[in-house]
């Protein structure tokens, strides 16, 4: 069911969070530890794994944005703001934030 594919994305978000935790842990142990972490996550298997995580992260985002207008309707006068505006606003924020992060990280 579509619902299940949406819900299962959470496993990948959780897994990524644990990866971040590892990164932070290594970072706290000093340069050598952290750099060996970077080496450990380099390579074809890692690339494949992270690509899969990325796909699910995107699926998570898109499905999340699509349902948000239902939970938070905005009434304007006698009508409601059409859902697509709220969805569009989320996508806009998503793109802006992503660009900001990429810029801050030195990728752009």
């Amino acid at each position: 069911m579509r619902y299940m594919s949406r819900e299962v994305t959470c496993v990948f978000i959780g897994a990524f969070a644990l990866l971040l935790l590892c990164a932070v842990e290594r970072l706290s142990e000093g340069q050598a530890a952290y750099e060996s972490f970077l080496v450990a996550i380099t390579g074809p298997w890692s690339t494949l794994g992270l690509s899969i995580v990325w796909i699910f992260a995107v699926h998570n985002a898109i499905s999340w944005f699509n349902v948000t207008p239902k939970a938070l309707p905005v009434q304007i006068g006698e009508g409601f703001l059409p859902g697509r505006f709220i969805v569009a606003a989320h996508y806009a924020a998503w793109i802006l934030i992503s660009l900001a992060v990429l810029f801050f990280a030195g990728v752009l």
Partner: protein
Amino acid sequence: MNERMVHLEVLRYDPQVDGEPHFQRYEVPCKEEWVVLDALNAIKESIDPTLNYRWSCHMAVCGSCGMMINGEPRLSCHAFLRDFEGVIRVEPLANFPIERDLVTVADDFIDKLKRVKPYLIPGENKPIAEGEYTQTPAQLMKYRHFSMCINCMLCYAACPQYALQPLFLGPAAITLAHRYNLDSRDGGREERQQVIATNEGVWECSFVGACSEVCPKAVDPAGALQQVKVASTLDWFREHLLPGNAK
């Protein structure tokens, strides 16, 4: 007039006679523009008068004729024969006990509906001399689509959480509570929150969204329930974090 033979496989069950439900196949000549309900009526009139099912308005406003058609919860007066191919499987509405054939026992839903107090509970009692409770069109629009529910229970048949947990209040009951909570003339929100902001109330919902998909009146119960979650969460923080608000 265009006619064709339609094959229906209908669930039959007479608890006083049958050990368990079984299917009966019917072949009935149908007009092109007919709905499943028309086919059932034709069967009852000229083929098998013992077939039992509910119906009334034949125009999707009374909510009586809900049943599973090819596994989907539909109103039989709203399911056009021309949209189906082959044998059409007709079963009673899922997640409810079968009373007889296609008639289900709706008591659980009615009971839950009563518990959410689906009527206006005025905040202060206005004497008649002071006039009516007025409402602007904007205030009406806030809850109007939620008031369109015809109590057909298709959403209960579609909801996988209701299937797993019969204590779940369910989409329609909670949506109707929300409809009254949003009504500017109402003052009974706190009373209803005691019923819907519980584990068997809105918190059993995991936002699958099937209820909104099957609703014939576009009520969007899924949206209503998420709104109830947001409102209940804000309530919770207010009650637990702000001093002097304990209830």
